[in-house]
């Protein structure tokens, strides 16, 4: 069977990596013995294998796989294990799903007034002071009447 092998440098959490494969080239492989279709072992000619390749697409299964565990068998052939990438394989269906967004890189969708428990805070503090815009406690003690003398009786008004 033919697969398309390439290299993906993207974060494995990327939903759709199909467009991110580089150095893509077809490769003829066989399936080694019986294997789980989610974790197939590809048997291929070592001359056609690029050790930098970490990703492949199996058109017949319409599935994408991470490649790992290259094993040289006899100097001519090697096996490479594929691990199903469910995100990219089912990316079209996943994109149509609905859900509740709880964290996002997109600041246009984030809620800046919801507490973020992941935000790291240091123990040291910054401190700032802000004066109110007026102070009434500005007496001229020499000239202003700032004393109150209370007497018994007096010429109360």
């Amino acid at each position, binding site marked *: 069977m033919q697969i398309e092998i390439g290299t993906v440098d993207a974060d494995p959490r990327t939903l759709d990596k199909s467009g991110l494969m580089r150095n893509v080239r077809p490769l003829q492989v066989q399936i080694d013995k019986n294997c789980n279709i989610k974790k197939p072992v590809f048997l291929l000619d070592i001359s056609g294998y690029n050790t930098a390749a970490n990703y492949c697409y199996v058109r017949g299964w319409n599935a994408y796989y991470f490649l790992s565990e290259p094993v040289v068998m006899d100097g001519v052939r090697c096996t490479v294990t594929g691990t199903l990438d469910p995100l990219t394989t089912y990316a079209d269906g996943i994109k149509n799903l*609905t*859900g509740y967004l709880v964290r996002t*890189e997109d600041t246009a969708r984030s809620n800046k007034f919801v507490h973020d428990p992941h935000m790291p805070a240091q123990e040291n503090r910054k401190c700032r002071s802000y004066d109110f*815009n007026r102070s009434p406690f500005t007496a001229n003690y020499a000239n202003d009447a700032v004393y109150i003398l209370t007497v018994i009786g*007096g010429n109360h*008004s």
Partner: protein
Amino acid sequence: MIKADFYPTRYTATAGKYTDEAFTIANSGEYTPENFANPYMMGYIPAGEVPVPLILSNWTVDGDGEDRVIHFRRANNENMLWGLSMAYVSNNSSWDGAHFYYSSNDATWKRVTGLTTRFSYFINETEVINYQNSGYYTISYVSVKHNQDGTWSDNTINNLFKISKNAEEIRKFIAGEENWTLQIAGQNTLDVNYSMVNDYGMLEYDGGDYTIYFCFYGFTQSGAPSSCALSVTGGRGSSLTPFFKFSATNTNTQDATICFTASNAPGEFNGITYNTITHTISSSLQPKYNGMFLGITDSDLPESEIPYDPNRYKSNVYKQFFMYASNIISAIPLTEAYKYICIPNKFYKNATSMSNVPASASYNENYTVALFDKSNKPLWTRATGSFASLLPKLQIWQYPGTDISENDFDPGHIIPPSPRPDPVPPDDDENGGDDYEPNDPAGLGVGTGFTTMYAIRSAHLRELGNKLWTGFTDINDYINNFIFAVDPNTGSVNFADIMQFFISLRAYPCPISAMTSTSAGGQDMYIGSGAAPIHLNTNFSIVDEYIGTINAGELEVPFWFGDYRDYSLECIVYLPYCGTAELNAADIMGGKLSAFYTVDFCTGACMAYVLCDTWDGTRIRVASLSGQLGADLPMTATNAGQVAARMYGDRINVAENILGGVKSAVTGIGAVASGNFAGAVRQGFDAFISPALNEERLKSQMGTRSAIAAPMLSAGRGLASFTDAKTVFLQIRSPIYAAPSNYNAAVGQPATDAVTIGDCSGFCQFINVDVSGITTDAEDQRAIRQALESGVII
């Protein structure tokens, strides 16, 4: 397993399933199945293999005078059988009645009953009064029965009343062919012509048995209500014959008039619309029969109307209504299924808040769910909040329940007959309590006749001292001129120490005239007896009132980060002469602070208030502290000792109160003497107690929010405080956040949005994603869901 699909879902016959579909609602159109293109589907339970949804649709309909109509209908892509409509009439901004449509061929619909134009008080079916014990004469009901063989038979009970017409004529009346005059057997004919208009004829008579009743609902009375008693018995429901027994007694000396509708407007019951029936109850003490009422049984007429009033949504009337609706939803036995109806809140809330029926409802709006249990007893929900949060639960809801069970629903309860309005938040204008802005109570002056307060400048104060203490040549001169002093102006002799007339002398950090009103200067001072006071030529002003107020400025509270972090900042406000108060950042952020002082000139004590005009336009008080604005100055040895004792004693008392809690707040005269300062004074004297205790108390005050306690700044006492800061200031402390530059890409920021995954970009984390639509096995589905929950990059 019974799976429930939910709104907004549209049943597609060809696909044979319900799919989510975004849609809009047309604002007008005749009802035809083809135009019925914008359904809101309610809940449904699959009836065997065929799901039977109840669809809520919405459009405007003219012709009947209705501005909006909302219909519930059963749609299973087969012949639609029943629908229930509610109409919103814009001219009186109310939701009017409800009536059933029915159709046998899904092409034309007939409305079973007409539309009420007014809601009348509807007798709650639980208000059944045992008329036999009421002491009133009551009537029974008169009925005629149409039998299967086409004959009519009298079904009157008790024979207290008899319709004067025969059964055929009753039929004519029902058909609108003639009017009636009712006669009370053995008594006078009622002097009111019961003129009734009905659209009962809209119902196609199917030849089955049924019993005809008239009934009324609601009544008013005028004249002498207190002595004209009306009693109503009866009710409606599947177990009760829907009729009302009515009796009245007028024991007043004047006639009373009763109207048989609450609003004196045409009312309706089960399709028979009748005008207001007014009858005068004479002033005779003898009880009188005043009416008889016939009604239509629900069991006899399955398509009977159930009035609908959004304000009475949870009343037993609605139980009745939804019991009918539940039968429409699905024909499967109740023992095998739950049924529910979900209605957008805006469709049934008090219509005064709606001027237009909304064009659509979305996931994010609020819904109320009515769930019917297996006994067909409706259970009512609270407002469910965002529909988006409900939908995932209902999508996987199974009975016996997993995510949703009966416990999620309030049991149906009886509401009082009078409509209870939905609670609404108070207007901002009604905001009271802590928005107090100190104001000087006018008239609380010094004119008590016992004391006088003089506002004095320092130079004049020295002059007074000179008058009192200098100029005496020797002790005899002092005794003669001071102890046994003769008033130079009046000639009176004082046999006492003049200093006993001086109560206090205090200095303030701002002009007295800036705090309160004072008389013009140049006043002489009179001391002692009003009949023969000691008169000193001075140059003083008289302080008019005991209380002064000071505006200490404003501050627009600045944001630091512009996000949630601002609302957990540590904020303290320093109030000169009082101390510090810790403020809640969530209360003040984005608002404007204002500081005020009120001063008690009798004691020199002050109260400082900080008000906040919050971002949403309300005014709240965020801090109030007591302090000492006036600094006591000694005048004599005794006075000096008293002043010091007050200062020192306060500290002792405060120290005790720190350990045991402040016993009382500082208020008014005597506050200084009591020494029970609250607020910052306590904090200011922290140094006088053990450091360990202080630290522990500070930590408990700060809680876990900060490992480092906010500084407690004390205000001084006495003249020493005059050297302290004289401006109110706000101190804000913030942690330093150390988010890396790629924080958003690596961790993201919190979000609160129901979305379609494909519409998002960048790093995203999702919950409540239904992956069952992904055509793969459970293992892959689980892996996908876990990946979405841990975060993916789109």
